[in-house]
Protein backbone atom coordinates (compact mmCIF):
# COMPACT_ATOMS: atom_id res chain seq x y z
CA UNK A 1 0.00 0.00 0.00
CA UNK A 2 2.74 2.40 1.01
CA UNK A 3 4.65 1.38 -2.06
CA UNK A 4 1.74 2.28 -4.33
CA UNK A 5 1.29 5.64 -2.61
CA UNK A 6 4.93 6.48 -3.05
CA UNK A 7 4.81 5.60 -6.75
CA UNK A 8 1.77 7.73 -7.29
CA UNK A 9 3.56 10.68 -5.81
CA UNK A 10 6.81 10.04 -7.68
CA UNK A 11 5.99 12.20 -10.70
CA UNK A 12 4.67 15.34 -8.98
CA UNK A 13 7.60 15.17 -6.61
CA UNK A 14 10.09 15.27 -9.43
CA UNK A 15 8.24 17.93 -11.39
CA UNK A 16 9.25 21.54 -11.01
CA UNK A 17 6.96 24.51 -10.68
CA UNK A 18 7.39 25.23 -14.37
CA UNK A 19 6.23 21.71 -15.18
CA UNK A 20 3.08 22.13 -13.12
CA UNK A 21 2.24 25.33 -14.97
CA UNK A 22 2.86 23.46 -18.21
CA UNK A 23 0.43 20.70 -17.18
CA UNK A 24 -2.25 23.24 -16.28
CA UNK A 25 -1.84 25.14 -19.53
CA UNK A 26 -1.77 21.90 -21.48
CA UNK A 27 -5.04 20.79 -19.91
CA UNK A 28 -6.58 24.11 -20.93
CA UNK A 29 -5.34 23.76 -24.50
CA UNK A 30 -6.88 20.28 -24.61
CA UNK A 31 -10.18 21.63 -23.27
CA UNK A 32 -10.13 24.22 -26.05
CA UNK A 33 -9.51 21.48 -28.63
CA UNK A 34 -12.42 19.41 -27.30
CA UNK A 35 -14.50 22.56 -27.57
CA UNK A 36 -13.72 23.26 -31.20
CA UNK A 37 -14.18 19.66 -32.30
CA UNK A 38 -17.44 19.12 -30.45
CA UNK A 39 -19.09 22.54 -30.72
CA UNK A 40 -20.04 22.34 -34.42
CA UNK A 41 -21.84 19.08 -33.68
CA UNK A 42 -23.55 20.52 -30.61
CA UNK A 43 -24.59 23.54 -32.66
CA UNK A 44 -26.34 21.24 -35.11
CA UNK A 45 -28.17 19.55 -32.25
CA UNK A 46 -29.19 22.91 -30.71
CA UNK A 47 -30.56 24.18 -34.01
CA UNK A 48 -32.47 20.95 -34.61
CA UNK A 49 -34.45 21.39 -31.38
CA UNK A 50 -35.05 25.11 -31.87
CA UNK A 51 -38.41 26.76 -32.22
CA UNK A 52 -38.71 28.44 -35.66
CA UNK A 53 -39.98 31.75 -34.28
CA UNK A 54 -37.29 32.11 -31.63
CA UNK A 55 -34.65 30.78 -33.99
CA UNK A 56 -35.35 33.77 -36.24
CA UNK A 57 -33.83 36.11 -33.65
CA UNK A 58 -30.76 33.98 -33.13
CA UNK A 59 -30.07 32.86 -36.65
CA UNK A 60 -26.39 33.15 -37.46
CA UNK A 61 -25.45 33.63 -33.83
CA UNK A 62 -23.54 31.26 -31.60
CA UNK A 63 -25.98 29.13 -29.61
CA UNK A 64 -25.28 27.70 -26.19
CA UNK A 65 -28.67 26.02 -25.98
CA UNK A 66 -31.59 25.48 -28.38
CA UNK A 67 -33.45 28.72 -29.20
CA UNK A 68 -36.72 27.85 -27.54
CA UNK A 69 -37.72 24.22 -27.72
CA UNK A 70 -39.73 22.54 -30.40
CA UNK A 71 -39.95 19.15 -32.06
CA UNK A 72 -41.51 20.64 -35.17
CA UNK A 73 -38.36 20.06 -37.20
CA UNK A 74 -38.23 16.39 -36.32
CA UNK A 75 -41.95 15.98 -37.02
CA UNK A 76 -41.36 17.35 -40.50
CA UNK A 77 -38.38 15.04 -41.07
CA UNK A 78 -40.60 12.09 -40.17
CA UNK A 79 -42.78 13.01 -43.15
CA UNK A 80 -39.88 13.21 -45.61
CA UNK A 81 -40.32 9.84 -47.27
CA UNK A 82 -37.13 10.18 -49.35
CA UNK A 83 -35.02 10.32 -46.18
CA UNK A 84 -36.54 7.10 -44.86
CA UNK A 85 -36.32 5.35 -48.20
CA UNK A 86 -32.66 6.39 -48.34
CA UNK A 87 -32.22 5.01 -44.85
CA UNK A 88 -33.69 1.65 -45.84
CA UNK A 89 -31.53 1.48 -48.96
CA UNK A 90 -28.38 2.35 -47.02
CA UNK A 91 -29.04 -0.34 -44.41
CA UNK A 92 -29.56 -2.87 -47.18
CA UNK A 93 -26.34 -1.80 -48.96
CA UNK A 94 -24.36 -1.92 -45.72
CA UNK A 95 -25.58 -5.46 -44.97
CA UNK A 96 -25.22 -6.97 -48.43
CA UNK A 97 -22.14 -4.97 -49.39
CA UNK A 98 -20.22 -5.75 -46.24
CA UNK A 99 -20.95 -9.47 -46.61
CA UNK A 100 -19.76 -9.42 -50.21
CA UNK A 101 -16.63 -7.40 -49.45
CA UNK A 102 -15.75 -9.56 -46.47
CA UNK A 103 -16.19 -12.77 -48.49
CA UNK A 104 -13.80 -11.61 -51.23
CA UNK A 105 -11.34 -10.10 -48.74
CA UNK A 106 -11.23 -13.27 -46.62
CA UNK A 107 -10.76 -15.51 -49.66
CA UNK A 108 -8.04 -13.27 -51.06
CA UNK A 109 -6.23 -13.00 -47.73
CA UNK A 110 -6.46 -16.76 -47.13
CA UNK A 111 -5.16 -17.66 -50.58
CA UNK A 112 -2.26 -15.23 -50.22
CA UNK A 113 -1.34 -16.52 -46.77
CA UNK A 114 -1.56 -20.21 -47.73
CA UNK A 115 1.90 -21.66 -47.40
CA UNK A 116 1.59 -24.23 -50.20
CA UNK A 117 -0.08 -22.00 -52.79
CA UNK A 118 2.18 -22.06 -55.82
CA UNK A 119 0.94 -18.86 -57.53
CA UNK A 120 1.20 -16.67 -54.43
CA UNK A 121 3.67 -14.17 -55.88
CA UNK A 122 1.99 -13.46 -59.23
CA UNK A 123 -1.48 -13.23 -57.64
CA UNK A 124 -0.15 -10.89 -54.95
CA UNK A 125 1.46 -8.79 -57.65
CA UNK A 126 -1.75 -8.54 -59.67
CA UNK A 127 -3.74 -7.48 -56.61
CA UNK A 128 -1.25 -4.94 -55.26
CA UNK A 129 -0.91 -3.42 -58.75
CA UNK A 130 -4.53 -2.26 -58.54
CA UNK A 131 -3.65 -0.17 -55.49
CA UNK A 132 -1.48 2.11 -57.60
CA UNK A 133 -3.25 1.98 -60.95
CA UNK A 134 -6.97 2.22 -61.45
CA UNK A 135 -9.31 2.72 -64.32
CA UNK A 136 -10.44 6.22 -63.54
CA UNK A 137 -14.02 7.50 -63.57
CA UNK A 138 -14.95 7.19 -67.25
CA UNK A 139 -13.29 3.85 -68.12
CA UNK A 140 -14.80 2.30 -64.98
CA UNK A 141 -18.20 3.65 -65.95
CA UNK A 142 -17.87 2.17 -69.44
CA UNK A 143 -16.87 -1.23 -68.01
CA UNK A 144 -19.65 -1.28 -65.41
CA UNK A 145 -22.09 -0.20 -68.09
CA UNK A 146 -21.06 -3.07 -70.38
CA UNK A 147 -21.61 -5.49 -67.50
CA UNK A 148 -25.21 -4.34 -67.47
CA UNK A 149 -25.37 -3.60 -63.75
CA UNK A 150 -25.95 0.16 -63.94
CA UNK A 151 -29.28 1.20 -62.40
CA UNK A 152 -29.39 -1.95 -60.27
CA UNK A 153 -28.34 -2.43 -56.64
CA UNK A 154 -25.15 -4.15 -57.89
CA UNK A 155 -24.09 -0.98 -59.63
CA UNK A 156 -23.96 0.59 -56.19
CA UNK A 157 -22.44 -2.34 -54.31
CA UNK A 158 -19.84 -3.93 -56.57
CA UNK A 159 -17.55 -1.21 -58.01
CA UNK A 160 -14.86 -0.47 -55.45
CA UNK A 161 -16.30 -2.94 -52.95
CA UNK A 162 -12.98 -4.61 -52.14
CA UNK A 163 -10.18 -2.64 -50.53
CA UNK A 164 -6.72 -4.00 -51.29
CA UNK A 165 -5.46 -2.28 -48.17
CA UNK A 166 -7.89 -4.27 -46.00
CA UNK A 167 -7.01 -7.46 -47.85
CA UNK A 168 -3.31 -7.02 -47.13
CA UNK A 169 -3.95 -6.16 -43.47
CA UNK A 170 -6.03 -9.33 -43.11
CA UNK A 171 -3.39 -11.40 -44.87
CA UNK A 172 -0.79 -10.17 -42.36
CA UNK A 173 -3.06 -11.30 -39.57
CA UNK A 174 -3.65 -14.71 -41.20
CA UNK A 175 0.10 -15.09 -41.61
CA UNK A 176 0.59 -14.80 -37.87
CA UNK A 177 -1.43 -17.95 -37.22
CA UNK A 178 1.21 -20.41 -35.91
CA UNK A 179 2.40 -22.69 -38.72
CA UNK A 180 2.40 -25.70 -36.37
CA UNK A 181 -1.40 -25.53 -36.24
CA UNK A 182 -1.61 -26.02 -40.03
CA UNK A 183 0.63 -29.06 -39.87
CA UNK A 184 -1.18 -30.80 -37.06
CA UNK A 185 -4.53 -30.05 -38.71
CA UNK A 186 -3.25 -31.48 -42.01
CA UNK A 187 -2.14 -34.64 -40.24
CA UNK A 188 -5.64 -34.90 -38.78
CA UNK A 189 -6.92 -34.80 -42.35
CA UNK A 190 -8.36 -31.29 -42.35
CA UNK A 191 -8.95 -29.83 -45.82
CA UNK A 192 -8.44 -26.19 -46.77
CA UNK A 193 -12.03 -25.19 -45.93
CA UNK A 194 -11.87 -26.79 -42.48
CA UNK A 195 -8.58 -25.03 -41.92
CA UNK A 196 -10.08 -21.67 -42.87
CA UNK A 197 -13.27 -21.98 -40.82
CA UNK A 198 -11.95 -23.87 -37.81
CA UNK A 199 -8.47 -22.43 -37.36
CA UNK A 200 -7.65 -19.28 -39.33
CA UNK A 201 -10.88 -17.32 -38.86
CA UNK A 202 -11.40 -18.07 -35.15
CA UNK A 203 -7.81 -16.99 -34.45
CA UNK A 204 -8.21 -13.68 -36.31
CA UNK A 205 -11.46 -12.37 -34.83
CA UNK A 206 -9.98 -9.00 -33.77
CA UNK A 207 -8.72 -8.19 -37.27
CA UNK A 208 -11.95 -9.47 -38.81
CA UNK A 209 -13.99 -7.18 -36.55
CA UNK A 210 -11.82 -4.19 -37.43
CA UNK A 211 -12.04 -4.78 -41.17
CA UNK A 212 -15.78 -5.43 -41.04
CA UNK A 213 -16.17 -2.06 -39.33
CA UNK A 214 -14.06 -0.37 -42.00
CA UNK A 215 -16.36 -1.79 -44.67
CA UNK A 216 -19.52 -0.86 -42.78
CA UNK A 217 -18.39 2.75 -42.45
CA UNK A 218 -17.31 2.94 -46.07
CA UNK A 219 -20.66 1.61 -47.36
CA UNK A 220 -22.53 3.86 -44.95
CA UNK A 221 -20.84 7.01 -46.21
CA UNK A 222 -20.53 6.05 -49.87
CA UNK A 223 -22.49 7.92 -52.56
CA UNK A 224 -20.28 8.30 -55.63
CA UNK A 225 -21.49 4.99 -57.09
CA UNK A 226 -25.08 6.17 -56.75
CA UNK A 227 -24.27 9.45 -58.50
CA UNK A 228 -22.73 7.70 -61.48
CA UNK A 229 -24.33 4.25 -61.72
CA UNK A 230 -27.86 4.87 -60.41
CA UNK A 231 -28.70 7.90 -62.55
CA UNK A 232 -32.12 6.59 -63.53
CA UNK A 233 -33.11 4.98 -60.23
CA UNK A 234 -33.76 7.61 -57.59
CA UNK A 235 -35.65 5.00 -55.59
CA UNK A 236 -32.35 3.13 -55.06
CA UNK A 237 -30.46 6.18 -53.75
CA UNK A 238 -28.66 5.69 -50.43
CA UNK A 239 -29.16 8.12 -47.57
CA UNK A 240 -26.01 10.12 -48.38
CA UNK A 241 -27.34 10.97 -51.86
CA UNK A 242 -30.60 12.20 -50.37
CA UNK A 243 -28.68 14.27 -47.83
CA UNK A 244 -26.61 15.79 -50.61
CA UNK A 245 -29.77 16.86 -52.44
CA UNK A 246 -31.51 18.21 -49.36
CA UNK A 247 -28.58 19.91 -47.66
CA UNK A 248 -26.01 20.87 -50.24
CA UNK A 249 -27.98 21.30 -53.44
CA UNK A 250 -30.92 22.68 -51.47
CA UNK A 251 -33.42 20.72 -53.54
CA UNK A 252 -36.27 19.86 -51.28
CA UNK A 253 -39.04 19.38 -53.81
CA UNK A 254 -41.33 17.11 -51.85
CA UNK A 255 -40.76 19.21 -48.82
CA UNK A 256 -41.51 22.50 -50.52
CA UNK A 257 -44.76 21.04 -51.80
CA UNK A 258 -45.94 20.43 -48.27
CA UNK A 259 -45.03 24.00 -47.30
CA UNK A 260 -46.28 25.91 -50.27
CA UNK A 261 -47.01 29.27 -48.68
CA UNK A 262 -43.55 30.72 -48.25
CA UNK A 263 -43.85 32.65 -45.03
CA UNK A 264 -40.80 33.58 -43.00
CA UNK A 265 -41.45 30.96 -40.37
CA UNK A 266 -41.79 28.29 -43.06
CA UNK A 267 -38.40 29.31 -44.39
CA UNK A 268 -36.95 29.02 -40.90
CA UNK A 269 -38.58 25.67 -40.39
CA UNK A 270 -36.87 24.54 -43.57
CA UNK A 271 -33.52 25.60 -42.12
CA UNK A 272 -34.24 23.73 -38.89
CA UNK A 273 -35.28 20.64 -40.80
CA UNK A 274 -31.83 20.59 -42.42
CA UNK A 275 -30.22 20.38 -39.00
CA UNK A 276 -32.70 17.68 -37.93
CA UNK A 277 -31.80 15.65 -41.02
CA UNK A 278 -28.11 15.81 -40.13
CA UNK A 279 -28.87 14.59 -36.60
CA UNK A 280 -31.16 11.79 -37.78
CA UNK A 281 -28.60 10.57 -40.30
CA UNK A 282 -25.58 10.72 -38.02
CA UNK A 283 -26.94 9.54 -34.70
CA UNK A 284 -26.58 5.77 -35.39
CA UNK A 285 -22.85 6.15 -36.02
CA UNK A 286 -22.36 8.42 -33.01
CA UNK A 287 -24.21 6.04 -30.68
CA UNK A 288 -22.14 3.00 -31.54
CA UNK A 289 -18.91 4.92 -32.03
CA UNK A 290 -17.61 4.98 -28.42
CA UNK A 291 -17.99 1.22 -28.18
CA UNK A 292 -16.17 0.40 -31.38
CA UNK A 293 -13.55 3.13 -31.27
CA UNK A 294 -10.84 0.79 -30.04
CA UNK A 295 -11.24 -1.49 -33.07
CA UNK A 296 -10.67 1.42 -35.40
CA UNK A 297 -7.60 2.50 -33.51
CA UNK A 298 -6.36 -1.07 -33.78
CA UNK A 299 -6.98 -0.92 -37.52
CA UNK A 300 -4.72 2.11 -37.88
CA UNK A 301 -1.97 0.26 -36.07
CA UNK A 302 -2.46 -2.93 -38.11
CA UNK A 303 -2.00 -0.94 -41.28
CA UNK A 304 1.10 0.76 -39.97
CA UNK A 305 2.82 -2.49 -39.05
CA UNK A 306 2.43 -4.01 -42.52
CA UNK A 307 4.77 -6.98 -43.07
Amino acid at each position, binding site marked *: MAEIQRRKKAVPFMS*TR*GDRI*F*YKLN*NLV*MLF*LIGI*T*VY*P*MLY*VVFCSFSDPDQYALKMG*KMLLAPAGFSLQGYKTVLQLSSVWQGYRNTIFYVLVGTCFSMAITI*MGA*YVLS*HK*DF*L*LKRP*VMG*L*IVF*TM*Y*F*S*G*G*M*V*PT*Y*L*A*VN*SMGITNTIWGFILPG*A*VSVYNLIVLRTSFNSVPKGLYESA*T*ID*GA*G*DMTMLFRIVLPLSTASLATITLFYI*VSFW*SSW*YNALVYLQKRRDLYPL*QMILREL*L*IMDQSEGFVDSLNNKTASQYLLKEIV*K*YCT*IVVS*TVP*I*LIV*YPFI*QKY*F*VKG*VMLGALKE
Partner: protein
Amino acid sequence: MNTALDNTHKKGGGFLHRLALNIRNHPMVYIMMLIVMTYFILFCYWPMYGNIVAFKNYKPFLGLARSEWVGLENFRNFFSSVYFFRIVKNTLVLSLLNLFFGFPVPIIFAILLNEVQSARYKKIIQTATYLPHFISTVVVCSMITLFTNSTGFITTFVNALTGHEGSLISDPDCYRTIYVVSYIWQSFGWNSILYLATMMGIDPSLYEAATIDGANKFQQIIHVTIPGLKEIIVIQFILACGSLMSLSWEKSFLLQSSLTYEVSDIISTYVYRKGFVDNDYGYSAAVNIFNAVINFGMLVFANQLSRKYSESSLW
Protein backbone atom coordinates in the same frame (compact mmCIF):
# COMPACT_ATOMS: atom_id res chain seq x y z
CA MET B 1 -2.39 -40.43 -46.43
CA ASN B 2 -1.22 -36.98 -47.46
CA THR B 3 2.14 -37.89 -48.85
CA ALA B 4 1.68 -35.71 -51.93
CA LEU B 5 0.91 -32.64 -49.88
CA ASP B 6 4.27 -30.99 -49.73
CA ASN B 7 5.61 -32.23 -53.02
CA THR B 8 4.68 -28.91 -54.53
CA HIS B 9 7.82 -27.19 -53.41
CA LYS B 10 10.20 -30.05 -54.19
CA LYS B 11 12.64 -29.75 -57.02
CA GLY B 12 12.12 -31.77 -60.17
CA GLY B 13 9.18 -31.93 -62.52
CA GLY B 14 8.21 -29.03 -64.78
CA PHE B 15 6.28 -26.05 -63.53
CA LEU B 16 3.07 -27.27 -65.12
CA HIS B 17 3.47 -30.63 -63.44
CA ARG B 18 3.92 -28.99 -60.06
CA LEU B 19 0.98 -26.70 -60.73
CA ALA B 20 -1.26 -29.64 -61.57
CA LEU B 21 -0.19 -31.36 -58.37
CA ASN B 22 -0.79 -28.18 -56.39
CA ILE B 23 -4.28 -27.81 -57.86
CA ARG B 24 -5.10 -31.43 -57.06
CA ASN B 25 -3.95 -31.05 -53.48
CA HIS B 26 -5.62 -27.73 -52.82
CA PRO B 27 -8.62 -27.43 -55.14
CA MET B 28 -10.45 -25.02 -52.81
CA VAL B 29 -7.53 -22.61 -52.77
CA TYR B 30 -7.66 -22.41 -56.55
CA ILE B 31 -11.44 -21.97 -56.59
CA MET B 32 -11.12 -19.09 -54.12
CA MET B 33 -8.33 -17.57 -56.19
CA LEU B 34 -10.52 -17.72 -59.30
CA ILE B 35 -13.39 -15.94 -57.51
CA VAL B 36 -11.11 -13.22 -56.18
CA MET B 37 -9.34 -12.74 -59.50
CA THR B 38 -12.68 -12.56 -61.32
CA TYR B 39 -13.61 -9.62 -59.15
CA PHE B 40 -10.31 -7.85 -59.75
CA ILE B 41 -10.37 -8.51 -63.48
CA LEU B 42 -13.94 -7.24 -63.86
CA PHE B 43 -13.67 -4.15 -61.65
CA CYS B 44 -10.00 -3.20 -61.87
CA TYR B 45 -8.35 -4.61 -64.98
CA TRP B 46 -11.25 -4.16 -67.36
CA PRO B 47 -11.52 -0.44 -66.44
CA MET B 48 -7.74 -0.17 -66.77
CA TYR B 49 -8.01 -1.51 -70.31
CA GLY B 50 -10.86 0.95 -70.87
CA ASN B 51 -8.32 3.77 -70.60
CA ILE B 52 -7.75 3.31 -74.34
CA VAL B 53 -10.83 5.53 -74.66
CA ALA B 54 -8.40 8.42 -74.04
CA PHE B 55 -6.84 7.71 -77.43
CA LYS B 56 -10.16 7.44 -79.24
CA ASN B 57 -12.96 9.65 -80.41
CA TYR B 58 -15.64 7.83 -78.45
CA LYS B 59 -19.05 7.45 -80.06
CA PRO B 60 -21.66 5.74 -77.87
CA PHE B 61 -23.38 4.03 -80.82
CA LEU B 62 -20.05 2.57 -82.01
CA GLY B 63 -18.90 1.40 -78.60
CA LEU B 64 -15.37 1.40 -77.26
CA ALA B 65 -13.85 -1.11 -79.65
CA ARG B 66 -15.12 0.38 -82.90
CA SER B 67 -14.68 4.07 -82.08
CA GLU B 68 -12.02 5.71 -84.20
CA TRP B 69 -8.42 6.07 -82.94
CA VAL B 70 -7.26 9.68 -82.66
CA GLY B 71 -3.82 9.21 -81.15
CA LEU B 72 -2.86 11.94 -78.70
CA GLU B 73 -5.48 14.45 -79.81
CA ASN B 74 -7.33 14.40 -76.48
CA PHE B 75 -4.08 15.04 -74.62
CA ARG B 76 -3.12 17.86 -76.98
CA ASN B 77 -6.52 19.45 -76.48
CA PHE B 78 -6.14 19.28 -72.74
CA PHE B 79 -2.62 20.71 -72.64
CA SER B 80 -3.62 23.60 -74.84
CA SER B 81 -6.89 24.28 -73.00
CA VAL B 82 -7.25 27.26 -70.68
CA TYR B 83 -8.30 24.91 -67.90
CA PHE B 84 -5.02 23.00 -67.85
CA PHE B 85 -3.09 25.60 -65.90
CA ARG B 86 -6.02 26.43 -63.62
CA ILE B 87 -6.83 22.93 -62.43
CA VAL B 88 -3.19 21.86 -62.00
CA LYS B 89 -2.53 25.01 -60.01
CA ASN B 90 -5.64 24.57 -57.83
CA THR B 91 -4.84 20.93 -57.13
CA LEU B 92 -1.27 21.78 -56.19
CA VAL B 93 -2.17 24.79 -54.07
CA LEU B 94 -4.86 22.97 -52.07
CA SER B 95 -2.61 19.92 -51.59
CA LEU B 96 0.33 21.99 -50.46
CA LEU B 97 -1.81 24.03 -48.07
CA ASN B 98 -3.27 20.83 -46.61
CA LEU B 99 0.22 19.42 -46.19
CA PHE B 100 1.80 22.58 -44.82
CA PHE B 101 -0.89 23.32 -42.24
CA GLY B 102 -2.41 19.89 -41.78
CA PHE B 103 0.75 17.85 -41.33
CA PRO B 104 2.24 19.40 -38.17
CA VAL B 105 -1.05 19.71 -36.25
CA PRO B 106 -1.50 15.99 -35.37
CA ILE B 107 2.14 15.74 -34.31
CA ILE B 108 1.92 18.72 -31.95
CA PHE B 109 -1.43 17.47 -30.69
CA ALA B 110 -0.05 13.98 -30.01
CA ILE B 111 2.93 15.38 -28.10
CA LEU B 112 0.68 17.55 -25.94
CA LEU B 113 -1.85 14.78 -25.42
CA ASN B 114 0.95 12.50 -24.27
CA GLU B 115 1.69 14.97 -21.48
CA VAL B 116 -1.85 14.90 -20.08
CA GLN B 117 -1.55 13.28 -16.67
CA SER B 118 -5.07 12.02 -16.03
CA ALA B 119 -5.83 8.83 -17.95
CA ARG B 120 -9.56 9.57 -17.81
CA TYR B 121 -9.18 13.05 -19.26
CA LYS B 122 -6.91 11.63 -21.95
CA LYS B 123 -9.59 9.13 -22.92
CA ILE B 124 -12.23 11.88 -23.15
CA ILE B 125 -9.96 14.03 -25.33
CA GLN B 126 -9.31 11.10 -27.65
CA THR B 127 -12.97 10.19 -27.98
CA ALA B 128 -13.91 13.79 -28.77
CA THR B 129 -11.16 14.51 -31.28
CA TYR B 130 -11.50 11.21 -33.19
CA LEU B 131 -15.22 11.81 -33.60
CA PRO B 132 -15.21 14.04 -36.72
CA HIS B 133 -13.36 11.30 -38.63
CA PHE B 134 -16.49 9.14 -38.47
CA ILE B 135 -18.90 11.69 -39.85
CA SER B 136 -19.50 11.08 -43.53
CA THR B 137 -18.08 13.50 -46.09
CA VAL B 138 -21.57 14.51 -47.19
CA VAL B 139 -22.57 15.48 -43.64
CA VAL B 140 -19.30 17.31 -42.98
CA CYS B 141 -19.70 19.27 -46.20
CA SER B 142 -23.34 20.00 -45.36
CA MET B 143 -22.25 21.38 -42.01
CA ILE B 144 -19.55 23.50 -43.66
CA THR B 145 -22.09 24.83 -46.17
CA LEU B 146 -24.70 25.60 -43.50
CA PHE B 147 -22.18 27.33 -41.23
CA THR B 148 -20.49 29.42 -43.90
CA ASN B 149 -23.39 30.39 -46.16
CA SER B 150 -24.82 33.89 -45.85
CA THR B 151 -26.80 33.07 -42.68
CA GLY B 152 -24.33 30.67 -41.04
CA PHE B 153 -22.92 31.33 -37.59
CA ILE B 154 -19.29 31.15 -38.73
CA THR B 155 -20.05 33.72 -41.43
CA THR B 156 -21.59 36.08 -38.87
CA PHE B 157 -18.66 35.58 -36.55
CA VAL B 158 -15.96 36.10 -39.18
CA ASN B 159 -17.75 39.03 -40.79
CA ALA B 160 -18.06 40.77 -37.44
CA LEU B 161 -14.34 40.30 -36.80
CA THR B 162 -12.93 41.16 -40.21
CA GLY B 163 -15.52 43.35 -41.89
CA HIS B 164 -15.91 40.80 -44.68
CA GLU B 165 -19.33 40.87 -46.32
CA GLY B 166 -21.68 38.12 -47.39
CA SER B 167 -21.34 34.37 -47.57
CA LEU B 168 -17.90 32.82 -47.06
CA ILE B 169 -18.32 29.58 -49.00
CA SER B 170 -19.14 31.31 -52.26
CA ASP B 171 -16.27 33.78 -51.92
CA PRO B 172 -13.20 32.58 -53.89
CA ASP B 173 -10.93 34.36 -51.41
CA CYS B 174 -12.22 32.29 -48.50
CA TYR B 175 -12.65 28.90 -50.19
CA ARG B 176 -9.10 27.65 -49.59
CA THR B 177 -9.14 28.64 -45.93
CA ILE B 178 -12.44 26.83 -45.41
CA TYR B 179 -11.08 23.78 -47.23
CA VAL B 180 -7.91 23.55 -45.17
CA VAL B 181 -9.43 24.45 -41.79
CA SER B 182 -12.17 21.86 -42.21
CA TYR B 183 -9.59 19.28 -43.27
CA ILE B 184 -7.64 19.90 -40.08
CA TRP B 185 -10.82 19.86 -37.99
CA GLN B 186 -11.83 16.50 -39.37
CA SER B 187 -8.47 14.75 -39.37
CA PHE B 188 -6.09 16.02 -36.70
CA GLY B 189 -7.36 13.72 -33.93
CA TRP B 190 -7.42 10.63 -36.05
CA ASN B 191 -4.02 11.31 -37.64
CA SER B 192 -2.45 11.63 -34.21
CA ILE B 193 -3.03 7.93 -33.37
CA LEU B 194 0.12 6.77 -35.10
CA TYR B 195 2.32 9.33 -33.34
CA LEU B 196 0.72 8.63 -29.99
CA ALA B 197 1.36 4.91 -30.37
CA THR B 198 4.97 5.58 -31.37
CA MET B 199 5.47 7.66 -28.23
CA MET B 200 4.26 4.75 -26.11
CA GLY B 201 7.28 2.88 -27.42
CA ILE B 202 9.82 5.46 -26.23
CA ASP B 203 11.90 4.03 -23.38
CA PRO B 204 10.68 5.65 -20.09
CA SER B 205 14.20 5.51 -18.68
CA LEU B 206 15.16 8.22 -21.19
CA TYR B 207 12.69 10.58 -19.52
CA GLU B 208 13.93 9.61 -16.07
CA ALA B 209 17.52 10.26 -17.09
CA ALA B 210 16.52 13.63 -18.55
CA THR B 211 14.66 14.55 -15.36
CA ILE B 212 17.68 13.67 -13.24
CA ASP B 213 19.82 15.84 -15.50
CA GLY B 214 17.44 18.68 -14.64
CA ALA B 215 15.53 18.88 -17.92
CA ASN B 216 12.12 20.47 -17.59
CA LYS B 217 9.07 19.24 -19.46
CA PHE B 218 9.72 21.42 -22.49
CA GLN B 219 13.34 20.29 -22.75
CA GLN B 220 12.23 16.66 -22.40
CA ILE B 221 9.89 17.10 -25.35
CA ILE B 222 12.66 18.64 -27.47
CA HIS B 223 15.37 16.17 -26.54
CA VAL B 224 13.53 12.90 -25.93
CA THR B 225 10.05 12.89 -27.51
CA ILE B 226 10.85 14.53 -30.85
CA PRO B 227 13.97 12.43 -31.57
CA GLY B 228 11.85 9.36 -30.76
CA LEU B 229 9.26 10.47 -33.32
CA LYS B 230 11.71 11.52 -36.02
CA GLU B 231 11.62 8.29 -38.00
CA ILE B 232 7.81 8.04 -38.19
CA ILE B 233 7.51 11.76 -39.01
CA VAL B 234 9.90 11.34 -41.95
CA ILE B 235 8.00 8.31 -43.26
CA GLN B 236 4.62 9.99 -42.92
CA PHE B 237 5.90 13.15 -44.57
CA ILE B 238 7.29 11.23 -47.52
CA LEU B 239 4.04 9.28 -47.89
CA ALA B 240 2.08 12.54 -47.78
CA CYS B 241 4.31 13.97 -50.53
CA GLY B 242 3.69 10.85 -52.58
CA SER B 243 -0.06 11.43 -52.58
CA LEU B 244 0.23 15.17 -53.09
CA MET B 245 -1.82 15.39 -56.27
CA SER B 246 -4.48 12.86 -55.25
CA LEU B 247 -6.78 15.23 -53.40
CA SER B 248 -10.15 13.92 -52.21
CA TRP B 249 -12.64 14.21 -55.05
CA GLU B 250 -15.71 14.04 -52.83
CA LYS B 251 -14.99 17.05 -50.68
CA SER B 252 -14.06 19.36 -53.54
CA PHE B 253 -17.09 18.25 -55.52
CA LEU B 254 -19.45 18.89 -52.62
CA LEU B 255 -18.03 22.25 -51.57
CA GLN B 256 -17.47 23.88 -54.94
CA SER B 257 -19.92 25.97 -56.90
CA SER B 258 -19.60 27.77 -60.19
CA LEU B 259 -18.88 30.94 -58.18
CA THR B 260 -15.64 29.49 -56.84
CA TYR B 261 -14.41 27.40 -59.80
CA GLU B 262 -11.39 29.65 -60.24
CA VAL B 263 -9.94 28.31 -56.97
CA SER B 264 -12.02 25.19 -56.24
CA ASP B 265 -11.89 23.33 -59.54
CA ILE B 266 -9.28 20.57 -59.22
CA ILE B 267 -8.18 17.85 -61.64
CA SER B 268 -10.60 15.20 -60.37
CA THR B 269 -13.66 17.46 -60.34
CA TYR B 270 -12.78 18.55 -63.88
CA VAL B 271 -12.48 14.89 -64.92
CA TYR B 272 -15.96 14.28 -63.51
CA ARG B 273 -17.51 17.31 -65.18
CA LYS B 274 -15.94 16.60 -68.56
CA GLY B 275 -16.95 12.95 -68.38
CA PHE B 276 -20.43 12.96 -66.92
CA VAL B 277 -21.74 16.47 -67.53
CA ASP B 278 -20.23 17.18 -70.97
CA ASN B 279 -20.06 13.46 -71.88
CA ASP B 280 -16.63 13.96 -73.45
CA TYR B 281 -15.36 10.51 -72.44
CA GLY B 282 -12.07 10.47 -74.30
CA TYR B 283 -10.99 13.90 -73.11
CA SER B 284 -11.98 13.12 -69.51
CA ALA B 285 -10.02 9.86 -69.53
CA ALA B 286 -7.00 11.67 -70.98
CA VAL B 287 -7.04 14.19 -68.13
CA ASN B 288 -7.29 11.34 -65.66
CA ILE B 289 -4.33 9.51 -67.22
CA PHE B 290 -2.30 12.70 -66.97
CA ASN B 291 -3.16 12.88 -63.25
CA ALA B 292 -2.38 9.19 -62.69
CA VAL B 293 1.03 9.52 -64.35
CA ILE B 294 1.90 12.50 -62.13
CA ASN B 295 0.67 10.65 -59.04
CA PHE B 296 2.72 7.61 -59.86
CA GLY B 297 5.78 9.72 -60.51
CA MET B 298 5.35 11.39 -57.13
CA LEU B 299 4.97 8.03 -55.44
CA VAL B 300 8.15 6.61 -57.02
CA PHE B 301 10.03 9.77 -56.11
CA ALA B 302 8.74 9.64 -52.50
CA ASN B 303 9.64 5.99 -52.23
CA GLN B 304 13.19 6.70 -53.45
CA LEU B 305 13.48 9.41 -50.80
CA SER B 306 12.10 7.07 -48.17
CA ARG B 307 14.68 4.42 -49.02
CA LYS B 308 17.43 6.96 -48.81
CA TYR B 309 16.46 8.55 -45.50
CA SER B 310 14.80 5.75 -43.59
CA GLU B 311 14.70 2.00 -43.38
CA SER B 312 11.20 1.62 -44.70
CA SER B 313 9.84 1.90 -48.20
CA LEU B 314 6.69 0.84 -49.99
CA TRP B 315 8.49 -1.64 -52.22
